[in-house]
């Protein structure tokens, strides 16, 4: 009995010693040595090991000049060895014990093994999944030790899957077959990769029956995967299309309905994006709210610019498209220089709020990023709203009346110049809203607008001038075609092919997909 106790005490002392020496060696170790030391720290099973490794992963582990390690906490420093509160002699001279990617990965794996003992089933599942990514002997041993104690069914299932995956490496063909059978229905990437390597190629399994079983499993996963990859391409296309629609929809009003070639349209988008940036500057604590508020703010800012442009420049040039084009092009340069003077020529960072970032992992092959999803929904909402304004409000009625027959509308008592300004302002305001959405996807800089002006005109012309539905369908179609071509042709060539196809299409149907019909349209 005494002997046992002494042995336990000695083992504990040894663990403590192992832990102490490993931590002491950390500050001067190379990254490769650190990885080995991290393993020793984890194996020492010292009570401080978990805290230390987690703090290290978070970049909170520091050492002073003498090589003594401190952990940085919320309230101050603690001694990394004992966990007691401690004050380093000179906090300014502490050097962080750095990590690199490989080391962080190793640390995560080690922490996962600790996580296996967590009380939370969710943590345990995470831990098993983390370990499944790199199944070495120690991980398999840990999982096997855990399996009989595990009470939660979901965790148990995950462990069994991981062990089956490890079982694929068994010496016995029968056991490998059993492992394949028990993996049936699991479509995760690890399983897929493992099975496809067993089915064919250099590392194919020696046993024909195992090869066939693996091959059959791979084929069934393959058809499932290709279906979801198709869905993914479609989503990417719609998402690109929604950006095109957003950028073009303001132009569909100014160019499509009013017939004004507004080369400064891109700069109105840019102003909207800068509005989002300024709103974030005003509310640095709450990026999400700032982004939502910048939607109306951008509408007002760009809309006000739009009304001013119409009043000062465009109204003097109605019916003279060439001069309008030149004047608004000049204006676009002025606006670019304006933001360059105010915000400098450098791109401005617009942070992505929490709810916009991240990914909705539907399964192992198909995932949707939230920002793209929201922007797609947002584009459709803006479209519906605009359609409602044009079809259901008195402003919309007047806009349509003026665009169809200016003289007659005037005779009916419509203040055409007021309607012109309001229409232009509406189109400009929508461009500003598009800018807010684009600030989440691309660089906010003086050249933002230039990147979208050509695409915008392309969408409006393709969809049919003067038709909002044409803009929607046209933009989505261009997006999807672009994304369908991209895997085969590459991003550069896909864009060229789309342009060439568009030119040919316009040759055959000069009025676009959905041409305006009626006397007003024919008369132009």
């Amino acid at each position, binding site marked *: 009995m005494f002997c046992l106790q002494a042995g336990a005490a000695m083992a504990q002392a040894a663990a403590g010693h192992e832990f102490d020496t490993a931590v002491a060696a950390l500050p001067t170790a190379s*990254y*490769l040595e650190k990885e080995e030391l991290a393993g020793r720290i984890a194996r020492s099973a010292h009570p401080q090991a978990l805290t230390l490794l987690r703090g290290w992963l978070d970049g909170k582990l520091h050492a002073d000049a003498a090589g003594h390690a401190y952990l940085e906490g919320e309230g101050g420093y603690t001694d990394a060895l004992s966990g007691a509160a401690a004050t380093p002699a000179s906090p300014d001279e502490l050097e962080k014990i*750095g990590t*690199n*990617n*490989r080391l*962080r*990965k190793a640390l*995560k794996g080690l922490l996962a093994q600790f996580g296996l003992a967590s009380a939370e089933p969710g943590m345990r599942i995470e831990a098993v999944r983390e370990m499944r990514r790199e199944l070495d002997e120690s991980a398999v041993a840990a999982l096997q030790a855990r399996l009989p104690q595990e009470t939660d069914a979901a965790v148990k299932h995950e462990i069994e899957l991981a062990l089956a995956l490890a079982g694929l490496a068994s010496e016995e063909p029968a056991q490998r077959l059993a492992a394949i059978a028990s993996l049936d229905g699991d479509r995760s*990437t*690890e399983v897929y*990769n*493992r099975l496809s*390597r067993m089915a064919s190629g250099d590392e194919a399994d020696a046993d024909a029956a195992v090869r066939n079983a693996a091959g059959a499993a791979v084929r069934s996963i393959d058809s499932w995967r290709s279906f979801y990859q198709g869905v*993914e*391409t479609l989503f*990417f296309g719609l*998402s*690109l299309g929604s*950006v095109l629609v957003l950028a073009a929809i303001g132009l569909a009003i100014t160019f499509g309905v009013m017939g004004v070639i507004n080369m400064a349209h891109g700069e109105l988008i840019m102003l909207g994006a800068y509005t989002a940036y300024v709103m974030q500057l005003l509310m640095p604590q709450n990026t999400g709210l700032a982004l939502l508020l910048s939607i109306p703010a951008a509408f007002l800012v760009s809309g006000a610019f739009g009304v001013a442009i119409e009043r000062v420049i465009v109204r003097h040039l109605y019916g003279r498209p060439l001069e309008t084009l030149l004047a608004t092009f000049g204006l676009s340069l002025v606006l670019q220089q304006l933001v360059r003077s105010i915000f400098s*020529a*450098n*791109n*401005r*960072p*617009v*942070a*992505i709020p929490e709810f916009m*970032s*991240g*990914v909705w992992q539907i399964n192992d092959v198909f*995932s949707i*990023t*939230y*920002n*793209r999803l929201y922007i797609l929904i947002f584009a459709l909402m803006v479209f519906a709203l605009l359609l409602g304004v044009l079809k259901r409000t008195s402003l919309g009625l007047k806009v349509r009346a003026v665009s169809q027959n200016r003289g007659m509308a005037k005779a009916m008592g419509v203040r055409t110049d007021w309607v012109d300004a309001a229409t232009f302002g509406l189109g400009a305001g929508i461009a500003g809203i598009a800018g807010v959405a684009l600030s989440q*996807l*691309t*660089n906010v*800089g003086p*050249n933002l607008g230039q*990147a979208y002006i050509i695409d915008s005109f392309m969408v409006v012309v393709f969809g049919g001038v003067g038709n909002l539905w044409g803009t929607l369908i046209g933009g989505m179609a261009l997006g999807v075609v672009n*994304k369908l071509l*991209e*895997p085969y042709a*590459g*991003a*550069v060539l896909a*864009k060229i092919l789309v342009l060439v196809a568009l030119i040919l299409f316009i040759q055959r149907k000069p009025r676009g997909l959905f041409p305006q019909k009626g006397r007003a349209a024919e008369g132009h």
Partner: protein
Amino acid sequence: MKLKTILAAVALGAASFAVQAADTIKVGVLHSLSGTMAISETTLKDTVLMLIDEQNKKGGVMGKKLEAVVVDPASNWPLFAEKAEQLLVKDKVDVVFGCWTSVSRKSVLPVFEKNNGLLFYPVQYEGEESSKNVFYTGASPNQQAIPAVDYLMKDIGVKRWVLAGTDYVYPRTTNKILEAYLKSKGVKQEDIMINYTPFGHSDWQSIVADIKKFGSAGKKTAVVSTINGDANVPFYKELGNQKISAEDIPVVAFSVGEEELAGLDTKPLVGHLAAWNYFQSINTKANKAEIATWQKFIKKPDRTFNDPMEATVIGFKLWVKAVEKAQTTDVSKVSDAIIGLEVPNLTGGTAKMLPNHHLTKPVYIGEIREDGQFDIVWQTKGEVAGDAWSDYLPGSKDVEADWVKLKCGNYNTKTKKCSGQNY
């Protein structure tokens, strides 16, 4: 007596005036101050002005003051050639510091060779060039791309490679060299994915999804990025969005440095890598002093310092040393004198000008930190000698540049001929 003094004073005054007028050394600065490249190149113009200022405080070169002649080629490649001609023929400058993009360098090359000018080019580039009139103080591919790939292969254990770049000459040539290099190391074709995108590309979702798929084949995957300019921002954002972390698929970039990261939301970039010959965060006395001088000169205490700026500093110091050694600013004599000269790097070690007009340089790999600076995770032991002609491309394997023994920038060791091409 009085008259004599006045006369003497007048004579002295006239003489000193003459010294002022005739005896300055003119330094041309050929960097874009407007247009798309202005963001990067304006900083280099300021760096040269700072160096001239510092040198004049020390009494100039050979007792003569330095005088800067600044022109603006406006990110317009043909205009680079015109402005170079203006500097060399009209202003008669003794040396030019300039250019950033490879296409601008190619555009001024014939002008410098025709007029026997002297150009110091401070940016990392694709190699395959060595002109009598140009000194390349930035990295050649074997001083940046190849060591970075070696690091990923040996230290990280990368087996699958994505070579992603912007569609122009530097990424295309660099990727050609890297592809040949990887294949020589036994990497199979199916483990290399090459992708080009246009300048300013912003819709990265499908490319990043492809990279994710490519990287989920069970082998360690890395992205070698020669993506240039502001297309990098949406690229890294999309990586962050699709939850590709630097631990799973690290991205090592050759064109992303402190200046590019300044004023960026660096959160999605943390842990990704960059390969350079200089990092601002390297803790040496010389580096700290230079950064302090720079921030004082530009009057902004948080301005960053980067690799092409260090290359400009080294080029300038080497030129000053060479002029003092040759005791003339004559281009041919300075070119002869500069070979073999050494100046200390800001980060330790020395930069030595080699007979092929390239430098010896240390290579560092840094991981991006949240504050936009880099943590050094790897560095070469000692300096790497710049190689003008890559050893991994079939066309350039046998070509050698040596302006001392061979007097040729493209000597073919097989045919024993100097091809005499104008580069």
